[in-house]
């Protein structure tokens, strides 16, 4: 396999982060100050402008990790392992954020921070499944075994992702069905779309930066060991001195 040398500097990734931050700022200002409050939930609904984009992008990150896992196993190349590590890490971060945002919304709306609803339960399972993969990567020293095993574990864990997405359709869920432009009033579209692209660009930027870090670390692991430093003459043990 080719060495995982990062070919580009962090410039393009940082551009994505800056662009994502700007879009997220613009979307959040529109969502918080310009868009009207929702009829039934009032201001509490405004968390949707970050909650829904976080959910979409968390699933997108895990789907990308699944693609990287398949490509690593069937095509090879360290870059796929680095991308998988980055995507799983960013995906777990977004999924934890998603659960926190959901809890903040659920308390005033449902009266509880957490409910054992199929959508929430399958999301929690998804977080733990992918966190387990990060733990697995931490405890395996051999880079090839680490890459192969985490790719296998990612493929198995990914089975849960479509279940999370379709859980609200398959079971009678307290969580509402997926929103679409036809089910959401047009005044809510712009802040939601801006934030969706904002989180997407941030995710791309973070995954690219994290891939670069993973590549540099892997490069160090795969490099041949440094030669032993020559010992000072007086410190070399001799048979006579032993």
């Amino acid at each position: 396999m080719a060495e995982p040398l990062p070919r580009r500097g962090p410039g393009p990734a940082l551009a994505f982060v800056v662009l994502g931050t700007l879009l997220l700022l613009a979307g959040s200002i529109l969502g918080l100050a310009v868009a009207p409050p929702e009829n039934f939930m009032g201001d509490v609904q405004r968390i949707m402008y970050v909650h829904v984009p976080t959910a979409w992008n968390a699933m997108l990150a895990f789907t990308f990790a699944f693609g990287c896992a398949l490509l690593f196993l069937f095509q090879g190349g360290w870059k796929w392992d680095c991308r998988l590590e980055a995507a799983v890490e960013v995906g777990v971060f977004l999924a934890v954020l998603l659960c926190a945002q959901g809890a903040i919304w659920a308390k005033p709306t449902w009266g509880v921070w957490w409910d054992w609803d199929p959508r929430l339960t399958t999301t929690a399972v998804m977080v733990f499944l992918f966190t387990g993969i990060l733990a697995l990567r931490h405890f395996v020293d051999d880079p090839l075994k680490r890459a192969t095993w985490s790719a296998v574990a990612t493929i198995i864990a990914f089975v849960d992702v479509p279940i999370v997405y379709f859980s609200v359709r398959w079971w009678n869920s307290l969580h509402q069905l997926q929103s679409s432009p036809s089910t959401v009033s047009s005044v809510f579209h712009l802040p939601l779309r801006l934030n969706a692209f904002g989180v997407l660009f941030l995710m791309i930027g973070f995954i690219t930066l994290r891939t670069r870090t993973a590549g540099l670390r892997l490069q160090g692991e795969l490099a041949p060991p440094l030669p032993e430093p020559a010992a000072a003459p007086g410190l070399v043990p001799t048979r006579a001195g032993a």
Partner: protein
Amino acid sequence: MRELAAALHKEALLQWRTRVQLAAIFVFGASALLLFSFAIGPNSAALRLHAAGFLWLALLLSSTLSLAESFQSEMEQRAFEGLLLLPASPLALFYGKALSNWLQLVLLGVGLVPVMVVLYDAGTLRLPGLLGVIVLGAAGLAAPGTLYAAMTAQARAKQTLLPLLLFPLVVPVLLAAVKATSLLILGDPMEQARSWALLLVAFDAIHWSLCGLLFGRVVED
């Protein structure tokens, strides 16, 4: 097929020689059942209500011990590398080990049922149905458990890693098995146990095929 039969023969021989270990894991499961009752207190109605959940939790906790041990003898003196050098496909090695683990978990589950009946007064006359749920639920634990045990046996912190990887994955198994067992114990007027058993069948079908396909990648050097 001959490779699978040879792998099964090897596993049966290993299990027979380490049968004391299975007895120790059974005692662990039984003591877990005893401890769970302290969470509820001496309320016989509540204990009966939660009996199915406790049974499957005890089996899940016991399964991590038995699965982690299942690759122990292969890891000693690099026996696993020797196995891989044999003209046998990794598929036969996986299914031999997974079937053996499945059998071990079924025996554990069947052994824990009388303990549950005695401690929680949670008997049922639908014994073939209960056996069916144990067989399906144990299969759901055995296939991913064998795959993850093969990985974690070679990793650091194996005792932590195996449950960390396995527990979230088998949540559907736990859910469906607990529901089906509970319906068999407490009564099933709406005939719902069958749909939970079907969920177990679907989980087993997906994971027995997926884990078998991926095992070759896990053990290749």
